[in-house]
């Protein structure tokens, strides 16, 4: 699977994604956000290509065990 890529997303698509995430913005504002969002989504895309043995959760969640 892959995350949305820069080719898939324009300002209107981003506006809908932001809305799904909990932020309402105008189409004009979405256009301003677009370059920053696309740079972030490239990071997501690179992570999606990794083959990680996935048991989930964060490394930080190990902290209490390590402290014990």
């Amino acid at each position, binding site marked *: 699977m892959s995350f949305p890529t820069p080719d898939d997303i324009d300002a209107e698509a981003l506006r809908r994604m932001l809305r799904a995430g*909990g932020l309402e913005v105008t189409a004009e504002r979405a256009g301003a956000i677009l370059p920053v969002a696309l740079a972030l989504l490239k990071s997501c895309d690179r992570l999606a290509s990794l083959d990680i043995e996935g048991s989930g959760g*964060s490394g930080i969640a190990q902290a209490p065990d390590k402290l014990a």
Partner: protein
Amino acid sequence: MSEIDFISIAELGARYRRKSLSPVEVTERALARIKALDSKLNAFVTPLEKESLADAAAAERELSQGHDRGPLHGVPVAVKDLIAMAGAPTTFASRAGSPRHPDRDAGLVKNLRRAGAVLIGKTNLLEYAYGAVHPEIGQTNNPWDPKRTSGGSSGGSAAGVASGMCFAAIGTDTGGSIRIPAAYCGIAGLKPSYGLVDLDGVQALSWSLDHAGPLARRVADAARLLEGMTGGSFPARPHGLKGLRLGIMDHPGQDRFLQPAVRYHFERALAKLRQAGAEIEPVSIPGLEHAADALLTILEPEASVIHQRLIAAEPGGFGEMTRLQIEAGFALPATAYIRAQQLQRELAHRYDQLFARVDAILSPSVPWVAPAEDPALGDDGGEGEMLYSAVYNLTGLPALSVFAGLSPEKLPVGLQIVTPWRTDDLALSIGAALEVLIPPVRAPLDP
């Protein structure tokens, strides 16, 4: 100019107890330096003149009565302005949700007061510690060259310490925000183990990645501040170097960013360590090249949730760059966040394994010396600036930046020391040993 403003915390304490120097006198000197120098540096958002002089008078009275609170008693310390202090405004270096007037101290501030520290003021930062300067507030300039940045986001704390306005300061670090300014300003800065320092009352940027820690001119001073913040014991005695196993981390992509002066001083430090008996070997971690991607993919949506109400209520109160970052974070898929957490967990595991072979891992702190301005988070410059630091926010390992030398243009170079989980004193002890081989140099700025 007087040496007094730059002596160690141990020496300051000794002079207090010999009565050759008093907390009030030292606090007055520090406040005078802030007045004289801060128009050039912009390190302090809120100096606390009246309050710090009252704290200093109380410390002086207690010490004269034999009530000794320990090494920080009467020592001027500054606090990054996203940490709550009762009686002082918190601005977050922003116009959004600012100022706040907390009615209670953050946990670490409470500990510092208990240790007798004189809290001299609140220091400037990148807006909400999020990678960009608010244009109405401006960046903190570097004591080594005021035309350059002191780094972010704890730049005010670093510049205040380096210029002798205080003896130590508190910073926070979510992707390098203690270690980057420490390196740019030629001082010591520790990002402690995740969870070591209580973050109650510290404005969050990313719950998974946030740390608070000390900045100081010497490693021992940073250790005293860490003790004051936590109530723990971190002797930070110079570690024996003979037989110490040091891994030199191969950071993929570093050749793209690494400046010759930084490479030179890093290799010079390794040569000195080898000469002193350390065993040095190259090491690598698979997946390290994706650390910055994972950091941003965790940080951005967490920051967006943290600032959700404020960005809806006062979007224009944020600087445009900070506002864009907060807004963009709402678009990240949950699946990406989980993938980033999986890599975070995997990297922590791989580092654990590596520490069976080496006692500590070394790298430069930042691939370059202080630039004119802080690069934007998420672009090429931001990736380069966090090249060596980001992975240790992900893994939660203690990471210390220490002075490694001066570039030809007389700008400091930093070296990073990383040790296993909860071995913060080992990182400090190795830093103290390196400090003997490469003594720190004082910034040239004076009134």
